């Protein structure tokens, strides 16, 4: 039997889903975390029920793509668990009534019960149950309260005898019911409200946002580096002897040795430059990229769970309108900084094709993922902050200019923002760690094989002389236009597979700082990795992807060439 978990956005459907099925999905404090449905299984005595976490919707008639998924799913469901926000009863009930009118058996989970209680709201659940004609269970999915009762009452789900009246009166009906069962006090101003006012204040809001972003990225850079140095120590201490022993076994040379251990530098293994599967292939993802990914997701997840991201969206809205997208697009951008794939997918929360194209293009071209950034920070950071400042400055200018140009010339609508500002919440640590763990796990599982494959291909290419061939063919562009050594062409090819491996290939080339800057920017801007490319194809379709690719080639030629000339002219 197929059970649908449905409700308004940001009422805790995904949290309930995790509790019911034991499977892990990402939970955040803003609308639209789930843009695609997730499936899990709930064991109920003898029966196994298939549970589907449906994207949040206000209405069964969809107003965006995530909602469209929701209304399509309804036909295939045999039972609906309707998740209702107890602290916003009336508007949740509007959807509840629509669901009851489908005639399917429904059970209502009155979630965020704790939040409602904190706000002094009381709800007569017995009365609500009677009025709706279906079981109603108070729950608090984050802590797990009420979940046992919910599970036991799923079988009691039944079709309501409520009859269809005309559509306009559904709201009246919802208001009527909520007035009958709910007592809500006048709200007194709290610390939370004050914080709220500061963070969306016209003057203090942007100042606060800048502060939050600086602290966040400062933390990611420093804590990431701290963890990296620790793991580097672990690698040197524990893994180096093993790798050296293997190298010795194979006599320090030969084709297999080149692939597994790589090139010895002054007779020794060098984790950054040897480029073997067991050396650089493990070192890049685990000791360089992972620490930064962890630091980033720690910060992002806290910002998400507190509920700051929608406010950040409000603050940057005026700026982002110039780019043809509204403020909430900052959420896909921020996710994209972790990994472009979920960033592009989150673009679904936007309504029009124009917006989704702009967001997809900006992420693919001007938002480098954390894996790539970790490597670039390692590569350029040694020479001080100036190189990094130029790289990030260039990307930011690109982001703005490209957005403005696309906004000017692309046809289509850019609707204004309309979002709920969910109350600030203390992060619930258990679910926060679970989320970070899931994201890390996702990274290791999806990235590690590709990194190893990338390193393998690099070795294969070198052995077969492909890199030399590519260098020759592309020399006019790579050397002539960008001022880079021909071998950097190999990095551009590998970059299509994994950008972090590609940046790693630059290390042994012994380039000048200005060359490193140009190479980093070119690598960040040109073709996103294959995983991102596939998602872009799915989200945008062939035609828009081709358009994006053309824009990208144009941008990389202009930016790479221009930066090279500029750095040369200024004698950097």
């Amino acid at each position, binding site marked *: 039997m197929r059970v649908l978990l449905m409700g308004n956005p940001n009422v805790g459907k995904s949290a309930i889903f995790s509790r019911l099925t034991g499977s892990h999905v990402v939970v955040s404090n803003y609308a639209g975390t789930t843009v695609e449905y997730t499936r899990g299984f709930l064991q109920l005595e003898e029966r196994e029920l298939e549970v589907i976490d449906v994207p949040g919707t206000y*209405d069964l008639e969809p107003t965006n793509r995530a909602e469209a998924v929701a209304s399509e799913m309804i036909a295939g469901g045999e039972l609906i668990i309707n998740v209702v926000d107890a602290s916003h009863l009336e508007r949740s009930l509007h959807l509840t009534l629509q669901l009851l009118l489908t005639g399917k058996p429904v059970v209502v989970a009155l979630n965020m019960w704790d939040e409602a209680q904190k706000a002094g709201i009381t709800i007569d659940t017995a009365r609500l149950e009677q009025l709706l004609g279906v079981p109603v269970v108070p729950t608090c999915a984050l802590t797990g309260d009420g979940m046992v009762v919910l599970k036991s009452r799923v079988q009691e789900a039944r079709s309501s005898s409520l009859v269809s009246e005309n559509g306009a009166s559904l709201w009246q009906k919802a208001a009527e019911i909520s007035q009958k069962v709910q007592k*809500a006090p006048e709200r007194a101003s709290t610390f939370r409200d004050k914080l709220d006012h500061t963070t*969306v204040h016209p003057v203090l809001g942007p100042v606060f946002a800048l502060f939050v972003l600086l602290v966040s990225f400062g933390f990611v850079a420093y804590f990431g580096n701290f963890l990296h140095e620790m793991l580097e120590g672990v690698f040197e201490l524990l893994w180096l002897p093993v790798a050296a022993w293997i190298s010795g076994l194979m006599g320090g040379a030969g084709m297999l040795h080149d692939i597994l251990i790589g090139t010895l530098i002054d007779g020794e293994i060098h984790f950054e430059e040897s480029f073997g599967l067991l050396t650089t292939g493990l070192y890049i993802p685990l000791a360089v990229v992972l620490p930064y990914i962890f630091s980033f997701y720690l910060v992002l997840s806290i910002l998400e769970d507190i509920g700051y991201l929608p406010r950040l969206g*409000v603050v940057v*809205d005026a700026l982002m309108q110039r780019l043809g997208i509204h403020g909430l697009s900052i959420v896909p951008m921020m996710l994209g900084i972790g990994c472009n794939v979920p960033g592009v997918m989150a673009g679904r929360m936007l309504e029009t094709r124009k917006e989704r194209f702009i967001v997809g293009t900006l992420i693919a071209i001007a938002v480098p993922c954390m894996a790539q950034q970790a490597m670039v920070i390692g590569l350029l950071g040694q020479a001080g902050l100036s190189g990094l400042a130029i790289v990030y400055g260039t990307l930011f200018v690109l982001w703005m200019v490209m957005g403005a140009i696309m906004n000017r010339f692309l046809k289509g609508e850019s609707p204004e923002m309309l979002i709920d*500002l969910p109350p600030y919440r203390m992060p619930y640590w258990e679910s926060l760690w679970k989320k970070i763990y899931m994201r890390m796990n996702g990274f290791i599982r999806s990235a590690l094989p590709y990194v190893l494959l990338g390193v393998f291909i690099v070795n294969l290419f070198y052995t077969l002389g492909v890199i030399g061939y590519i260098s020759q063919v592309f020399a006019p562009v790579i050397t002539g236009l960008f001022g880079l050594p021909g071998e950097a062409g190999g990095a551009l090819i590998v970059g299509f597979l994994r950008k972090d491996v590609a940046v790693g290939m630059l290390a042994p080339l012994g380039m000048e700082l200005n060359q490193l800057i140009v190479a980093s920017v070119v690598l960040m801007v040109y073709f996103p990795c294959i995983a991102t490319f596939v998602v872009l194809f799915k989200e945008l379709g062939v035609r828009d992807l081709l358009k994006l690719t053309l824009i990208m080639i144009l941008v990389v030629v202009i930016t790479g060439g221009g930066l090279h000339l500029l750095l040369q002219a200024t004698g950097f």
Partner: protein
Amino acid sequence: MYKSLIELDLREEAEVVAFNGSSLMNRRLEGMGIRQGKKISRISSQYIRGPVIISVDGHQAAMGRGMATKLIVKPAERNGV
């Protein structure tokens, strides 16, 4: 007597009367509890044509300026004025 939301003074109480925009937008507003008869007030506005923060039915939302000009409200009678 009627004003658009944008003309409302900060924190002035009002009641939603109508929305002069697309029906799609109207449905989204309704879904978020912004509909006829609801008490609404403007908490703050961002500069340079940024969004307007409103409070409705005990929760807060942000909406674009264009939308806010299309949302017609009726300010509550003030005592002694």
